[in-house]
């Protein structure tokens, strides 16, 4: 038995050494260098993931597409630390960034980020299982268009009022039961540090503010949205950003649920943002305003 246990332990030691080497070398050196040649580095949560179709963007640019459902503050920190110098960046941070406890964290182990994460005392939170997140990160983060991922990520033109209502009910419960100010302060400081990193590295930044449905804005979510708008204005002055609004006229409800745009509007939006990004000369906050985005 003893020999068998020694034998197995030796194999697991080999596994452990390989895992640590892999994480350190792969994430912090090779994988990032592999992406150094990318035209655009794009980060956002599900709002961006559903709005900017990575396949459409990959047709024209070499894009590092780091966006997905639930991408949160840890992912943002990891992303900004890993940006190469002179990168061109599209960053989408919306009011959902101030979500209370649902940051997915697929950012994995970023050696450079540990200091920041420790600073925010969030390196190990209740949802953070280090091993599974590391593995997720290896497979998913910064992944390029896979061979067979031609299916778009956009939502269809149907309006899911049930999803919208349940989302609003849920978020209202959270807003009414939690002390928002702590979360605002904490997320503001993360965002400030991230913008600081980006402005030190990026040659071009488009800070994209995507809309949420009118119904959500008419709920107590407005407290979060008001804070978010104040943050935008302060970021404008702190980081010397231009502030612009892109008005798009919509005739019917453009939202699939409370926060995600549907197919028709995203087609239009992809083209407009591409054109805007190519023509902009200064780092800019671009607010997307859907005229006619009224409460149903």
């Amino acid at each position, binding site marked *: 038995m003893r020999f*068998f246990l020694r*034998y197995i332990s*030796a*194999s*697991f030691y*080999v*596994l452990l*050494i390989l895992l640590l080497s892999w994480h350190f070398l792969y994430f912090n050196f090779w994988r990032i260098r592999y992406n150094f040649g990318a035209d655009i580095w794009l980060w956002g949560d599900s709002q961006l993931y559903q709005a900017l179709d990575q396949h459409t963007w990959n047709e024209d640019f070499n894009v590092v597409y780091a966006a997905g459902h639930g991408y949160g503050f840890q992912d943002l920190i990891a992303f900004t630390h890993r940006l190469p110098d002179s990168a061109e960046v599209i960053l989408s941070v919306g009011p959902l960034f101030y979500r209370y406890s649902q940051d997915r964290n697929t950012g994995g182990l970023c050696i450079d980020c540990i200091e920041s994460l420790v600073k925010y005392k969030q390196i190990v939170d209740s949802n953070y299982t280090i091993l599974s997140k590391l593995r997720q990160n*290896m497979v998913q983060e910064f992944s390029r268009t896979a061979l*067979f991922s031609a299916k778009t990520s956009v939502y269809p033109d149907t309006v899911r009022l049930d999803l919208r209502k349940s989302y609003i009910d849920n978020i209202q419960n959270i807003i009414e039961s939690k002390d928002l100010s702590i979360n605002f302060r904490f997320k503001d400081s993360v965002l400030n540090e991230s913008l600081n990193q980006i402005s030190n590295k990026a040659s071009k930044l488009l800070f994209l503010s995507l809309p949420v449905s009118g119904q959500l804005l008419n709920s107590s979510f407005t407290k979060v949205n008001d804070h978010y708008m104040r943050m935008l204005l302060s970021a404008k002055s702190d980081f010397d950003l231009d502030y612009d609004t892109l008005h798009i006229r919509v005739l019917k409800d453009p939202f699939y649920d409370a926060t995600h745009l549907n197919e028709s509007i995203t087609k239009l939006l992809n083209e407009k943002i591409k054109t805007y990004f190519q023509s902009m000369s200064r780092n800019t906050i671009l607010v997307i305003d859907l005229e006619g985005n009224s409460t149903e």
Partner: protein
Amino acid sequence: MDFNSISYFIFLPIVFFVYWLVLVKHRQVRNVFILSVSYFFYASWDWRFLSLIAGSTILDFFIAKKLSKSTLEIKRKLLLFSSLILNLGVLGVFKYYNFFASELVELFSLMHLSLGDLTLNVVLPVGISFYTFQTLSYTIDVYKRKLEPSNDIVKFAAYVGFFPQLVAGPIERAGTLLPQFDKVFTFNTNQAINGFRLIVWGLFKKVVIADSLAPIVNEIFANYSDQTGVDLALGAVFFAFQIYGDFSGYSDIAIGSAKLFGFELMSNFKFPYFSRNVGEFWRRWHISLSTWFRDYLYIPLGGSRVENWLKIRNVFMVFLISGLWHGANWTFIIWGGIHAVMFIPSFFSRNKQLPKELEILSFIDLLRVFGTFSIVCIGWVFFRADNISHAISYFASFTWSFHSTVYLYLVYPLILLFAEWQIRNDERLSEPLISKKYEFLLLGVLMFVVYIFRDTPIEFIYFQF
């Protein structure tokens, strides 16, 4: 609790240590422990179906005892048939009822008669086909007086429910596995290392080979009309290696897990894609099922000691029922039919034994291996298709176009073939993969590769059967 899940790799060491450090010397307590953890393992899928295994176990335990005691042939036959009807009845309700009910409705609708919806909302219990065949073989062996019935219900229940092979085989015979529950084992280091080696290798085949090919196969079969001819052919090849990696990987983990506890299970695969004809393929593929059908269906039907046309009928019956065993769908029956047709030529050849050593001696041999593999791949298209029209459309979409977008994925089958050729005469991996001194390094590397490739665990294909 899949073999490729984290929970299994927490479950296995706990059971291992309790087994060897606490219970191993007390045979009866050990068997109770094996039974308990096996039922716990099964309940982790769906505890409601435990009653089915327990029911089948109790039924066959008592029927076998009565069978053994009885000398009246008519009574013995009645007992055997009651076991067959009850076991196959349960299997039939869960697995085949909806298929036959919908076929009946379809048939009547052709005559403009409506039977309404006769289907039931039932879930197929995991592993039901496997443990049903295992208990049936026990009853039949006792009926034939090849086997003395067990007097210990715990031991018998542990044999039926033994967790490494409970949900997807190998389908063990009572004659070989049941006596092992009588032994008091002492820890055998070589056997345990062999088990560990098999588990790692099985995981590699499942996670790295099968699961990497799965999304490509799904895409090609779902959008077959958009694929070029060469990609359609590759789709069939990839599925061949996906299902092989998946199922033989499962079997290796099962055999390896059993070895950790001192038990030996039968080999289920012997490098089937190196076969030179379909007959040889079936002596290398899913051996526990093909020998089950040989012993409990083919031979009772007369086997080879009958006229040629009866032999052919028997072969067809075995393959068609074997197809149906896999699932209630015409595609499986056609798959069985294709193998039956292609099996016949090798059936009449003289040499039906596997060679002692697997070697490809000549260019002709290589062509025969290639030809056999091509036939097997044609069968796999039916096996994988959703229905017959899907399979036919798949073949109909072939065009002479050699442009491929998926050829790079051939690296997975090639890696597997290369590795299997190195170990071609040792399917149980009883010898170290490399020098004994450094093998732990290779196993560590293989585990690392498994870790890298492991994304969302994909369920083993044979669980659905």
